[in-house]
């Protein structure tokens, strides 16, 4: 069941017009229009060796432009999007073009009101986050109304009601949410000069979706979730914690079990100049929360369950990325950042930065509810789970160390080593896939030829016996600041057990940037893989061809 989006344009467009008239009637000086533009397109060529399919359209494009008008406390904006047709790896549902995003908003005194589309999050997002991540094709913006109210300093209330974006339509459910945040040191004059800064927050979200009378079980129409959070800062110490609880919410994603959901997110850090230490832990139990209980994949998420593992950027380090398992996971993360100072034995002339981290994620404990009921059985509570117990199954672990050192005025070096364990079966949802153990080494060397000319080389190697075996990558990049770059890269699967599949993935790129405008071209092969941003991932299919990318801000 999908609601048509067109209905609401009419009244909203008049509101926008009324707002414009209002603004011009007041003759406020200094109104501005700003915006941006982004285009990504590819001309595809078939490459059966690497499984790059023949593309009927030959050429496909994702593009959008934002226009935002601001004048004093008033702002309004629209975004036009065109997917003609959506590039490989993006959902076909995006096919088409139109204006899926428009809003008007104003601030007056302690009130801020937004109508139309908006993004927001409560706390860490455990029970509510509406956000966009264009590279992943994610946009779960709310279409509705939002009111922010700051009755006095240090206290912020937020309330919102709306539907979520579902490609060119909207999700079936209605989301209602409230959030309150108290900055105690601002709110109470007595605490103003305290060395300890305390922030408390609480939120509640509920989703309404009609029961389905044809379905075997009675489904809850209103599903509520609540969360409480605390942030304490004192000197070098910083603690941030949030706990969330969700009522029973049987859905296609949890096999229609009636167990309530829970999430806990806790971080503590110590930082002073030259040293940073962080410890974090989290537990997630049955926390899928969507606008529509029948939807799978990335759309219509209400809860955002960040993954605690480190997000890697070097290609082979990011080869096996982790993504949160909302069904249930328990894990921890620790990192230390340290600087060996200038003019010391280890620091050298310019100082040496070292960063090391370890993370591990396991399944939570899943125990049968009684002797006769199978685990995860439909229409039951599904399972029992001890809150503090680590399940036996390892999902992911990552030890890595990175050393950054400026060797001389013209040489810079980054060394990176990783040791990963990756449960391909669970993370990619491919039953029967192995546990992948990989060791990865990376050297990134920059040579500054003149003030504005630099050559950078990246050498990466991954050793593993599982999946596709060993890989090596070489990248060379030449830059002329601030405008030009040219690079060539080859990823070579030299250790593939199937000797006829030891492919080279070569890619050549050229880019030009002037101010906020950037254009780049790339030609070559794209390896089949997984692209992740913020713990959410999408599969990137293999492709070959010419890519073009243009971005601009005005």
């Amino acid at each position: 069941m999908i609601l048509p989006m067109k209905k609401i344009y009419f009244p909203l467009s008049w509101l926008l017009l009324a707002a414009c008239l209002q603004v011009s009637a007041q003759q406020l000086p200094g109104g501005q229009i700003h915006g941006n533009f982004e285009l990504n397109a590819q001309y595809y060529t078939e490459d059966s060796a690497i499984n790059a399919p023949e593309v009927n359209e030959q050429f496909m494009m994702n593009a959008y432009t934002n226009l935002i008008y601001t004048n004093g406390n008033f702002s309004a904006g629209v975004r036009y999007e065109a997917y003609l047709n959506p590039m490989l790896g993006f959902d076909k549902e995006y096919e088409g073009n139109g204006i899926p995003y428009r809003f008007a908003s104003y601030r007056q005194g302690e009130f801020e009101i937004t109508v139309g589309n908006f993004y927001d999050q409560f706390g860490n997002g455990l029970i509510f986050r509406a956000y966009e991540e264009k590279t992943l094709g994610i946009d779960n913006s709310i279409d509705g109304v939002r009111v922010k109210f700051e009755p006095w300093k240090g206290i912020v209330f937020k309330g919102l009601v709306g539907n979520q974006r579902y490609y060119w339509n909207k999700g079936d459910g209605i989301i209602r949410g409230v959030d309150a945040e108290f900055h105690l040191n601002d709110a109470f004059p007595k605490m103003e000069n305290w060395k300890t800064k305390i922030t408390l927050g609480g939120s509640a979200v509920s989703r309404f979706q009609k029961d389905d009378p044809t379905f075997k079980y009675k489904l809850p129409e209103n599903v509520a979730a609540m969360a409480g959070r605390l942030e304490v800062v004192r000197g070098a110490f910083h603690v941030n914690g949030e706990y969330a609880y969700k009522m029973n919410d049987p859905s296609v994603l949890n096999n229609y079990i009636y167990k309530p959901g829970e999430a806990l997110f806790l971080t503590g850090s110590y930082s002073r100049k030259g040293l940073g230490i962080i410890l974090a832990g989290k537990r997630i139990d049955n926390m899928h929360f969507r606008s529509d209980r029948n939807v799978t994949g990335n759309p219509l998420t209400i809860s955002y369950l960040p993954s605690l593992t480190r997000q890697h950027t070097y290609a082979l380090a990011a080869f096996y990325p982790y993504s949160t398992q909302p069904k249930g996971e328990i894990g921890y993360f620790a990192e230390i950042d340290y600087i060996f100072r200038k003019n010391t034995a280890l620091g050298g002339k310019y100082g040496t930065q070292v960063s090391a981290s370890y993370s591990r994620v396991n399944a939570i404990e899943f125990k049968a509810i009684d002797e006769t009921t199978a685990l995860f059985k439909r229409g039951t509570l599904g399972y029992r789970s001890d809150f503090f117990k680590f399940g036996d199954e390892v999902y992911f672990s990552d030890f890595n160390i990175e050393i950054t050192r400026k060797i001389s005025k013209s040489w810079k070096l980054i060394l990176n080593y990783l040791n990963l364990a990756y449960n391909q079966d669970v993370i990619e949802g491919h039953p029967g896939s192995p546990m992948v153990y990989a060791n990865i080494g990376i050297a990134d060397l920059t040579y500054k030829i003149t003030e504005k000319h630099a050559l950078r080389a990246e050498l990466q190697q991954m050793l593993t016996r599982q999946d596709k075996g060993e890989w090596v990558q070489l990248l060379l990049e030449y830059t002329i600041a601030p405008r030009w770059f040219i690079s060539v890269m080859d990823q070579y699967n030299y250790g593939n057990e199937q000797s006829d599949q030891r492919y080279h993935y070569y890619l050549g790129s050229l880019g030009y940037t002037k101010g906020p405008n950037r254009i780049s071209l790339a030609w070559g092969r794209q390896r089949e893989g997984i692209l992740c941003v913020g713990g959410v991932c999408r599969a990137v299919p293999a492709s070959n061809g010419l890519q073009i990318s243009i971005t601009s801000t005005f």
Partner: protein
Amino acid sequence: MKNFILTIILGLPLLLPAQEDQHKAAGLPSVTIKNLNGENINTATLSNKGKPMIISFWALWCKPCIKELTTIADVYDEWVEETGVKLFAVSIDDARSSARVKPMVEGKGWEYEVLLDPNGDFKRAMNITVIPHTFLLDGNGNVVWQHASFSEGSELELIELVRKLNRGESLDAH
């Protein structure tokens, strides 16, 4: 849909006269983000006491961003002493990694004013598509120059522009 587009078209002439004034009073949009102590900061209030300021958007997962800020960190003391410039480093890391920003920034010894924009509200208001994206603002808080991406040596252009601003010269083009 037609109605909506019609409204926009009808609405545009109303907006155009206002747009001509753009250069008189630009300033930053008003968005609430956080500092590293979890306190709310309204971006419209960011200032550097009449001196130029730099706003650089970055994230922990963005290598060129870290490279840019590490490069500038080496010379930041000298920049501040010479020109009085101030750099605000706005991290767009979300809840996944925003707690790591503070220990990392301190661990690297950066002396910038670091702010957190975990849901991209400030980023959206500034119309950013890719990071790193760096803005230069004059003493009155007007954006006078911006640049996306970083390559070795780009920082030299940036500080040269700051010096120009201090000399009262106009920054033509980008």
